[in-house]
């Protein structure tokens, strides 16, 4: 399970899985199967994908504590970068497909739509993490790297707020993601996270 070949294959599979939504949605748009407003279709798809990948990234630490499998820590950077990538596509879709690069409308929107600001702040957080997700930056930042990347918790909260503000009538989907976020956060409470290894042992996971 931890031979270099298996781990390489695992990383390639994760890469392909993370790429597949982009390929699928692009194909749907190209085949005119994305409805009368393809830009909106991509916008919503990319945004949701960024959130899901962000949640998956945050599940890696508890999972590796539970199982001690190297594979989970090995894909953390990759998944984090994918979350940033889809968030960037989400913003680009908004600017290009919805606004048609009409920046006067952007300024009006920013003034009126607080969730645009919240979304942009979340993206800045992801950008900071993406820019410092390389060996050089880790070396330079040293002990400060870890606290800096705790900004991911703030990003998650901002993303959920951004999403919450967009929902108009049915909170079901949002509630599901928020619940997942709360669960992942509670697994980080010391009282719980320190018990994960022994729980993993009892379940035969490690």
């Amino acid at each position, binding site marked *: 399970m931890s031979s270099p070949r298996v781990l390489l294959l695992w990383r390639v599979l994760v890469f392909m899985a993370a790429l597949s939504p982009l390929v699928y949605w692009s194909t749907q748009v190209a085949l005119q199967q994305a409805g009368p407003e393809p830009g909106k279709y991509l916008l919503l798809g990319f945004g949701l994908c960024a959130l899901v990948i962000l949640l998956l990234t945050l599940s890696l630490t508890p999972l590796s504590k539970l199982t001690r499998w190297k594979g989970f820590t090995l894909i953390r950077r990759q998944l984090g970068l994918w979350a940033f990538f889809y968030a960037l596509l989400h913003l680009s879709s908004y600017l290009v497909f919805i606004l048609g690069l009409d920046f006067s409308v952007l300024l009006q929107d920013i003034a009126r739509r607080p969730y645009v600001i919240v979304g942009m702040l979340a993206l800045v957080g992801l950008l900071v993490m993406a820019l410092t997700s390389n060996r050089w930056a880790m070396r330079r930042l040293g002990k400060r790297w870890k606290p800096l990347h705790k900004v991911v918790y703030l990003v998650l909260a901002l993303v959920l707020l951004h999403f919450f503000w967009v929902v108009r*009538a049915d909170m079901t989907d949002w509630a599901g993601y928020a619940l997942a976020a709360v669960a992942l956060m509670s697994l980080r409470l010391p009282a719980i996270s320190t018990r994960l290894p022994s729980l993993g042992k009892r379940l035969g996971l490690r």
Partner: protein
Amino acid sequence: NAAWDAVVPEDQSVDKTTPFKDATSYNNFFEFGTDKSDPANRAGQLTTEPWTVMIDGEVNNPGKLSLEALMTPSRLEERIYRLRCVEAWSMVIPWLGIPLADVIRRADPTGEARYVRFETLVRPEEMPGQQSRFNLIDWPYVEGLRLDEAMHPLAFLAVGNYGRVLPNQNGAPLRLVVPWKYGFKSIKSIVRISLVRDQPLNSWQKIASSEYGFYANVNPNVDHPRWSQATERRLPNSLFNPNRMDTRMFNGYEEVASLYSGMDLRKHF
């Protein structure tokens, strides 16, 4: 009923009729879910025959009418109307139906009637959106018009679009079409029409009164708190052309303006 009273946009090169496929696959009909594709995917199971409409309240002719009885005395007309959604997209859709005024006149409102209140069907077993526990809408979906608005010749009750019976996702078998107001006023799958004394509390106003008012007239000068209403995206659009155009006062149906003379439309949004 071979003769049509077709009402069409003045410039059909600007207001091109939206393709059938788009108008029937991209819908807001929260009884079936909040995704735009949910109504087309889930509304097929809705039973629309038989269908009865309760006419009640301040009328001299109350009663429960079958859809056929409700429609028969009037001649079907075609209306090609612009539809402006409050979400800032728009379409152009040909409807088949009768003026709302016909139905109201037959109900014979009493002197006390000042508003018309409409109600959508509640049938969770066929309307999955109504099963959702986290939905903020308190079913049934309710809409309303002032009586003079309802009597305006443009206010329309549709039973069809694109020359055929209304697809379920578009509000079968009977829906309202009020082209100078945002789309959410045009209530779908109507089961009850009541003439009332007091202004009804429409569903969206109940959920968020700062965002959605009773009148909901299309107005480029009054923005939704979360987005501008100055422009709209005419659908279908394409990736690199949002097809953005200026939104017109009353969605271009200026003939209704006299209904609101002397009113502050910023206050009564």
